[in-house]
């Protein structure tokens, strides 16, 4: 059962730690302070990166689900579960950090703005994914139902992403034109752009390391389940 980490994973771990350290330094020391909002604007860098990972992860889960349905190879099911779990973690971190930013900028922790509403729907859709899986004992049936759900659930991702571009909203838009009523929007300087791209890069490398670890954990759980069934026969 116990197997050492492959060299590729070790390399990704080191890269993730280094790039996260650089991104954190850039947020703290390199990026300039925005005048209107003050230092809380700097939450933006990791908030955007966390939400990027949430959405990326749900798309990867849907791709793994499609491949699983074609191949019926359980390794794709393990990847799908890993991606949904990590996506949920980062989407939740994104929501909480956004709420903390909103308190001094919007003067409230929460408002039912289209972006906040759609991201809440997206979170609930993926929480329900795990509830569905827990309700099914047969591993193949569980994987099949989970795959179909992950594909359908992925529809909530573009809905969340485009909500600030389609509906009237107070949530700022990073790429594209802000609504007239957007509160907390700002023009990015070159140093701000560098910091944002470094944060996106660092979080993406961290994501690869986390996904790899969680995938290995899922495969180990599958092996344990198979071994248990074999010994019971």
């Amino acid at each position, binding site marked *: *059962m116990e197997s050492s980490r492959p060299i590729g994973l070790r390399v990704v771990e080191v890269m993730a730690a280094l790039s996260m350290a650089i991104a954190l330094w850039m947020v703290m020391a390199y990026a300039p302070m925005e005048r*209107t909002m*003050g230092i809380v604007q*700097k939450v933006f860098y*990791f908030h955007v990166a966390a939400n990027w990972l949430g959405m990326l992860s749900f798309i990867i889960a849907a791709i793994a689900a499609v491949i699983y349905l074609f191949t019926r190879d359980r390794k794709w099911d393990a990847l799908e579960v890993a991606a949904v779990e990590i996506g949920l*973690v980062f989407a939740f*971190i994104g929501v909480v950090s956004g709420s*903390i930013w909103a308190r001094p900028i919007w003067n409230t922790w929460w408002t039912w703005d289209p972006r906040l509403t759609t991201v809440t729907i997206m979170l609930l859709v993926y929480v329900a994914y795990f509830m569905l899986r827990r309700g099914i004992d047969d591993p193949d049936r569980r994987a099949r139902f989970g795959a179909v759900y992950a594909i359908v659930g992925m529809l909530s991702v573009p809905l969340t992403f485009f909500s600030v571009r389609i509906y009237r909203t107070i949530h700022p838009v990073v790429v594209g034109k802000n609504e007239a009523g957007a509160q907390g929007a700002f023009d990015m300087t070159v140093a701000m752009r560098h910091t944002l791209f470094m944060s996106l890069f660092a979080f993406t490398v961290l994501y690869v390391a986390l996904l790899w670890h969680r995938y290995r954990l899922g495969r180990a759980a599958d092996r344990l389940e198979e071994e248990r069934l074999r*010994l019971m026969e």
Partner: protein
Amino acid sequence: MHQTPDTSFYFYLGQAVILGGIVLYLVSLWWRQRELQADWDALQAWDEDRD
């Protein structure tokens, strides 16, 4: 003259939530790996005892 507001409490709270959340998830991965290994060892020990 414009005065930049002091929002440092919310900034540090936000950073702590983000980085703390990542660290907590790493701990949960390590913990589950440990539990899984313990279950595997217990299963192997049970199998050996049965033989």
